[in-house]
């Protein structure tokens, strides 16, 4: 009886929410316009663009030149006229035309630079042990598409010319030419079923499209049913009704997920129609079109639909949790961007080639759906993994709903007037001056820095080595500085810019020494566990340091991180964490984040530990200068070891023992603990940053 009453109420709430949502223009637009208008437009646009590109390639005429011959006629049957005839021959090449010009080599070079011609050939006679040979060099500009195409075509033609010459030479020797020319034949045959090939192509884009369309489909209804009720002032009306929070949330949740599922299915259907249309168009164009039995996709698509539903439930619950914090549509939209970034970033995993889809990954939300969809489309059915994905998504959705029910009990959240916690996306004029960053802002800044590190940092480091490292560090410094300028934060508090007491400096040096000893032990312990990882780290270091001087290395490897990384981790992030979390939680989380950021399993533990110590020092002293010093010392030792290994080994032999004995380990641990303890003891017993409840 009781449950049936509950069900009736949930049904009534669901009905009310659905009617309400379907009368909201934003929801309808998101649900219908994207799949029914945007996709066809994208598809049509790409078709048009494709044919336009093909058309432009076809109509192109390539200007090529042969520079003044240095080759002697007659060497190995070289015949300038025949070569010209071959190059200029446009009969056999229907798609492209080469136009031949003859210019002296010097002017060839200028003409290429001025882009008057697309490529030119220089023929030189060269003496080798076996006799005289003609060497053909093709000069072109790899940065220009037409030029590289022309070069490729010339190469093809020269290959044919080579074959011709060989055939001629062989026949002059009276040998059966074909067998000698092609003694073996190599060919490739793709054994993947055509369905698998199409599936793997779909698997690249489908997860991303599906995940983002579900998120878009869920977002507006989620905002409408949570923040929307607050904004329109109907929340209090809702709370006068004789329904429990659980019934309310479940009713709302089902309404949001219905819209999300509907929009996802619409998206899927629209995408299918579009790809069938696309397929039909391509097929008439290309004689070698893939023959695909669409019926073979039906089971795969059914599982995709099932996953979609599970994911829609999950994302609806999560989105509702996020939007419940907002007071208005405008504020909720501020949360949209970071949410989309996280979800889309995670869904990009399907693009990573050869990603091993294990049981552990199957439990990671978003990533699991993305990988599963791309696996299913190449017909890799692993039912246990499918089950894990479905079940974990349900479990996460349920957890999010439980959280949501608790949030709805929070009167502060329901009736409160607190401002937005994400300030970075708020108009600057609306922000008050002063204070430290919010935790949400800090997380965003950290994410932005990490993305910059991954995408920009790796590129500039590969390109500029040590200088690239410096650029990366400056980027890391720039993001929090820019963010705190934009949100008008007080720099002194945000970056803990307080002068230390002299005795604290001693404390910092001592505790850093102690910590260093412990970290060496830890990394030699971990080193045996993660040998490859350590090797990779060392190799990267050697590569980056190639040709660098000692002072340069010291400045860039020790000083720059001591300033830049400290500003981000112990400055911006830690001050935000300190404000919101209990001290222990703030210190451990900030430390762990510092560890994660080094993107290596071994370094996670060692730098994580270091991060915890640094955060603790800032917590105790409020001075980032101390941790900057400690960070500098820590990295400087590494630079010294790299540049002066013998001297360092003589001075500090224990740093170099790969397998220290038990006595030595005990001694080092004792020394480390004593130094660390003494260092920490030297800090003023009263923490400088006040504890805020």
């Amino acid at each position: 009886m009781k449950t049936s009453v509950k069900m009736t109420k949930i049904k009534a709430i669901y009905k009310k929410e659905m009617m309400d949502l379907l009368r909201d223009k934003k929801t309808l637009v998101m649900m219908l316009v994207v799949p029914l208008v945007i996709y066809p437009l994208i598809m049509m646009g790409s078709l048009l663009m494709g044919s336009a590109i093909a058309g432009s390639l076809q109509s192109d005429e390539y200007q090529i030149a042969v520079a003044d011959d240095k080759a002697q006629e007659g060497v190995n049957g070289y015949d300038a006229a025949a070569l010209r005839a071959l190059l200029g021959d446009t009969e056999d090449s229907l798609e492209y035309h080469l136009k031949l010009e003859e210019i002296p080599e010097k002017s060839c070079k200028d003409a290429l630079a001025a882009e008057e011609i697309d490529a030119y050939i220089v023929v030189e006679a060269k003496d080798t042990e076996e006799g005289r040979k003609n060497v053909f060099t093709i000069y072109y500009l790899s940065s220009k598409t037409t030029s590289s195409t022309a070069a490729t075509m010339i190469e093809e033609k020269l290959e044919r010319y080579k074959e011709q010459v060989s055939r001629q030479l062989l026949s002059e020797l009276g040998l059966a030419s074909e067998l000698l020319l092609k003694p073996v034949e190599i060919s490739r045959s793709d054994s993947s079923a055509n369905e698998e090939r199409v599936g793997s192509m779909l698997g690249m884009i489908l997860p991303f499209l599906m995940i983002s369309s579900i998120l878009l489909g869920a977002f507006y209804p989620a905002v409408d049913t949570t923040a929307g009720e607050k904004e329109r002032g109907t929340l209090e009306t809702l709370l006068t009704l004789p329904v429990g929070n659980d019934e309310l949330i479940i009713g709302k949740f089902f309404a949001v997920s219905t819209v999300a599922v509907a929009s996802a299915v619409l998206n899927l259907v629209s995408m299918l129609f579009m790809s069938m249309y696309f397929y039909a168009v391509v097929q008439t164009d290309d004689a070698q079109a893939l023959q695909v039995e669409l019926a073979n996709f039906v089971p795969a698509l059914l599982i995709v639909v099932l996953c979609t539903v599970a994911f829609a439930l999950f994302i609806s619950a999560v989105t509702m949790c996020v939007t419940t914090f907002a007071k208005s549509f405008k504020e909720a939209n501020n949360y949209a961007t970071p949410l989309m970034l996280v979800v889309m970033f995670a869904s990009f995993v399907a693009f990573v080639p050869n990603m091993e889809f294990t049981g552990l990954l199957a439990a990671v939300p978003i990533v699991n759906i993305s990988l599963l969809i791309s696996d299913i489309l190449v017909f890799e059915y692993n039912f246990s993994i499918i089950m894990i994905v479905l079940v974990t998504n349900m479990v996460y959705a349920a957890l999010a709903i439980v959280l949501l029910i608790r949030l709805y009990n929070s009167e502060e959240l329901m009736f409160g007037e607190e401002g937005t916690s994400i300030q970075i996306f708020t108009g600057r004029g609306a922000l008050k001056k002063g204070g430290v960053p919010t935790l949400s802002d800090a997380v965003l800044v950290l994410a932005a820095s990490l993305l910059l590190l991954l995408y920009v940092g790796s590129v500039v480091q590969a390109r500029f080595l040590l200088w690239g490292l410096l650029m990366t560090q400056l980027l890391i410094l720039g993001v929090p500085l820019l963010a705190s300028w934009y949100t008008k934060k007080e720099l002194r508090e945000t970056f803990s810019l307080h002068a230390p007491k002299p005795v604290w400096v001693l404390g910092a040096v001592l505790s850093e020494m102690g910590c260093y000893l412990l970290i060496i032990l830890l990394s030699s312990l971990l080193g045996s566990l993660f040998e490859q990882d350590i090797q990779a780290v060392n190799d990267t270091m050697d590569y980056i340091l190639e040709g660098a001087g000692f002072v340069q290395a010291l400045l860039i490897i020790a000083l720059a991180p001591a300033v830049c990384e400290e500003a981000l981790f112990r400055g911006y992030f830690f001050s935000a964490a300190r404000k919101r979390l209990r001290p222990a939680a703030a210190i451990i989380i900030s430390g762990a984040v510092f560890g994660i950021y080094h993107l290596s399993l071994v370094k996670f533990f060692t730098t994580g530990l270091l991060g915890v110590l640094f955060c603790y020092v800032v917590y105790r002293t409020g001075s980032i200068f101390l941790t900057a010093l400690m960070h500098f010392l820590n990295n400087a030792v590494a630079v010294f070891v790299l540049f002066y290994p013998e001297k360092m080994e003589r001075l500090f032999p224990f740093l170099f023992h790969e397998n220290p004995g038990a006595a030595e380990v005990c001694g080092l641990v004792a020394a480390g603990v004593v130094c660390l303890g003494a260092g920490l003891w030297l800090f003023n017993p009263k923490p400088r940053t006040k504890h805020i409840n």
Partner: protein
Amino acid sequence: MIKAENLVKTFTRTEKKNKRTEFNAVDGISIEAADGEILGVLGPNGAGKTTLLRMLGKLMSPTEGEVLITDETGRKLTKEIEIKRHIGYLSGNTKLYKRFSAREMLSLLGEIYGMTPQEAEGRIEEIVRILDLGAFVDNRIERLSTGQSQRVSIARCLLHSPQVYIFDEPTLGLDIISSRAIIDFMKQEKDQGKTVLYSTHYMEEAEFLCDRIVMIYQGQVIAKGTPEKLRAQTHTTNLRDTFLKLIENEAQGGLLA
């Protein structure tokens, strides 16, 4: 009948420099309103009226104390859902679902109150007659005038035939005709033996309407009784002066004899 004893509501307030302090918005209020009675809850802004009424309506849970109501059969109810089922709550913040017509909204809410579609339909017809909503009951609420939507709000409170009405400044910002509709409604319901709890800043309105008055200041009751009794106590001739005098006394720290 609605009754609450020693209600306390503690909030944490964030002040400058992120210092959080606790304070009692409602600090030990006992209140009781009988069937067939209109009880006025008066007090300056920030006295704790809204918090008190929200707790009585079970929109907020009290930090201390309990709310009890009796339904039309005299049964005592203390559970949140049961209390909500027997309360009609109206405040400046209980807005309507604008995308629906009044009829649609009422029938959806009827379902949530546990009525069958037929029951809801019958009840809506009845309410349309009582409140004279016929002219606009099928128009979307977003197109109604302020007075019309106020009448729909009353219809919302009336829908489930509650025993107790809690009205938090229901006439705030309304013109004379619209507030007249609400005042008449409260009187009618009182005459039918319902309990009405009502807060307002309009002293003339309260004087003319309330059987008894509870005066609240800084989360506490500073005076209660019939309007006549309060006037006599403070030696004033109208409730406005009574109110001012009581607040004045309280602010000086003195209590009335």
